[in-house]
């Protein structure tokens, strides 16, 4: 998907995350991993493969099926100076730890001045025929909670750099990994200690007619749409990859809106109460005079994600949807 020819140095999004885990565990003895089946088995998607052999069972802990306990124990260890990395086997199961994350972890610094540096990571997202419980994008549910940071990379290089930043952050970072991208996107990793700061968006494609603000899987669908629109319609589309959902890089959003005056927000998550609505509100409050068209959203429909391919494809946003929406904005 990167378009570059395969080279020996290219690694996948999944390998990039694994590389970050290895490097951070090597760098800091306080970093450790815990989760279900992450040790001997290497994790359901093999993200943690090889960690047990290198770092041992004391730092790569296979836990009971207990999301509340895993997240709570990570918080307790983090209070004492450790830097735990928690795996949710599928990010859908983070719902089990919702209380622990929102009531305990997110408030710890504010209410009790307790440091809680920890990462909760896991395979997220659809387009993989995973059905209702192996395809979710629950990030918006946590965007609403002050005290949590939310990262959701689209590229392999960002996956590595943001993971390293997340491990070093002094607060809890929810790190969403898109499972469709795990083995499909590749990058040559930047040399040295590659850290991508949390809270900064990236211009994934420069353009001048319409802006798309998006993140994770739909960055790729937006880029595909942008190429098609350039070729077929001569519309120049700018694509902003947020990379971090919380804190959100508002300036990057406002900058592109003031440049193109037309905004489409795209995400894979469901529509109502979603992040696109939040971005729309902020742009409306801040950039009203710069807008030449209403802000539009392309998102999943408000439906639990179904398993069957025709059903899943219908519910999730597709490139054709983005093309239609951009054409409508350009013609407004």
């Amino acid at each position, binding site marked *: 998907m990167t378009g570059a020819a395969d080279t020996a140095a290219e690694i996948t999004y999944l390998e990039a995350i694994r590389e970050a885990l290895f490097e951070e565990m090597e760098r800091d003895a306080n970093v450790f991993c815990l989760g279900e089946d992450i040790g001997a088995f290497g994790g359901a998607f093999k993200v943690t493969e090889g960690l047990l052999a290198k770092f041992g069972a004391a730092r790569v802990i296979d*836990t009971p099926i207990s999301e509340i*306990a895993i997240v709570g*124990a990570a918080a307790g260890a983090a209070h*004492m100076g450790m830097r735990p990395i928690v795996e949710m086997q599928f990010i859908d199961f983070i719902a089990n730890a919702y209380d622990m994350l929102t009531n305990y972890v997110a408030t710890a610094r504010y209410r009790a*001045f*307790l440091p809680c540096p920890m990462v909760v990571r896991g395979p997220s997202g659809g387009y993989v025929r995973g059905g209702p419980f192996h395809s979710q994008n629950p990030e918006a549910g946590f965007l609403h909670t002050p005290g949590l940071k939310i990262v959701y990379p689209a590229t392999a290089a960002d996956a590595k750099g943001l993971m390293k930043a997340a491990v070093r952050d002094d607060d809890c970072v929810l790190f969403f990994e898109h499972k469709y991208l795990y083995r499909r996107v590749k990058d040559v990793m930047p040399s040295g200690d590659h850290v991508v700061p949390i809270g900064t968006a990236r211009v994934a494609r420069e353009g001048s007619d319409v802006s798309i603000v998006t993140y994770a899987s739909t960055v790729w669908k937006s880029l595909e749409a942008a190429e098609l629109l350039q070729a077929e319609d001569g519309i120049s589309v700018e694509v902003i990859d947020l990379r971090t959902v919380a804190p959100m890089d508002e300036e990057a959003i406002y900058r592109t809106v003031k440049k193109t005056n037309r905004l489409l927000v795209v995400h894979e998550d469901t529509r109502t109460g979603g992040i696109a609505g939040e971005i729309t509100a902020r742009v409306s409050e801040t950039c009203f005079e710069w807008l030449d068209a209403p802000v539009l959203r392309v998102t999943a429909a408000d439906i639990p994600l179904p398993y069957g391919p025709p059903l899943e494809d219908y519910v999730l946003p597709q490139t054709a949807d983005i093309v239609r929406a951009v054409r409508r904005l350009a013609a407004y």
Partner: protein
Amino acid sequence: MAKARGPQGAGRPRDALSREQKLELYYWMRFTRSLEERLVNLYRQTKVVGGLFRSLGQEADAVGSAFALERRDILSPLIRNLGSMLVKGATPVEVLKQYMAKGDSPTRGRELNIHFGDTERGFIGQISPLGDMVPVMAGVTLSFKMRGEDRVGLVYVGDGATSTGAFHEGINFAAVQRCPLVVIVENNGYAYSTPTSMQTLAKQFVDKAIGYGIPGLQADGNDVLAVYDVTKQAVDHARSGGGTTLVELMTYRRKGHAEHDNQSYVPAGEIDRWAEENDPIDRYIRVLKSDYSATDDELAAIDARIQGEIDDATDIADVSPAPEALDALIGVYADPPEERPLWFRRDATDVAYGKERAEGWGTWTANDGKST
């Protein structure tokens, strides 16, 4: 099953306590009760901003268990463990300021009552969702194990919290990871208004230890020396690498869930019977006099000392300032260190410019707002 009980007979942990330490147990129990009585006065004077939670009748359970820890150990108290926190070094000034929502209280007015902590002194503040501190303390003690530190953790739950998923997941996690953790179930008969019989069909909470594959111990929670003995045994077990223990302390909640609760759900006579026959301080005074030759004068001197300390603390806390409103913006994250004020609050340092009246809603009018 064989009934799990604390250590009996000769060689009990209490025997290693000096007479001075035994008087210290009395001091902390009396301190707890007197400080709460002062808080009742302040509550009635409306100086306590939120609710008031009493541990009347449970002082032995809190004090005796915390006394079994070393300074380097960490406990996580519950709402009826003021005594545990005092033993661990929380001061009456902190407690009073906290209840009065002062700007220089331990949480700078952000949290209520005894929801505060200090990892240096070895206590971590609870949050309101019950059972959540069990997984957290599993993690605290996991860090002790990972770093090879000679430290132990102690977490309190009530009879009610044993019904939560967090309790189950946390104690099971601690057990399987062999965390040096003592989980104390304070069985005080009620969770808010719900009696223990509506909480579980288990005959006793100590039986649950079997299900987790860990030792279970039980003691009379109103006998401070028995509480100390049983907790010390569990603490020593944890410190020597034995892992997690569940301890059930049998006690009774003589006050309501909080000060507003009139306890209409309690059978007539039950509270009075416990007060008359099983008050932990009265019982301990009898033990101190009969077994350790304490005198009325000696105990009265301790009581007077406590009153003086609480009077001094009240004076300090009372004149302490309320928090600055803008402090609300600080410290949600390490980075950024401060949140930006919402645009309609920029240049405003007070709640709605001082035009709102706390007594009711809808009292602000456009005319009132003219001057702003």
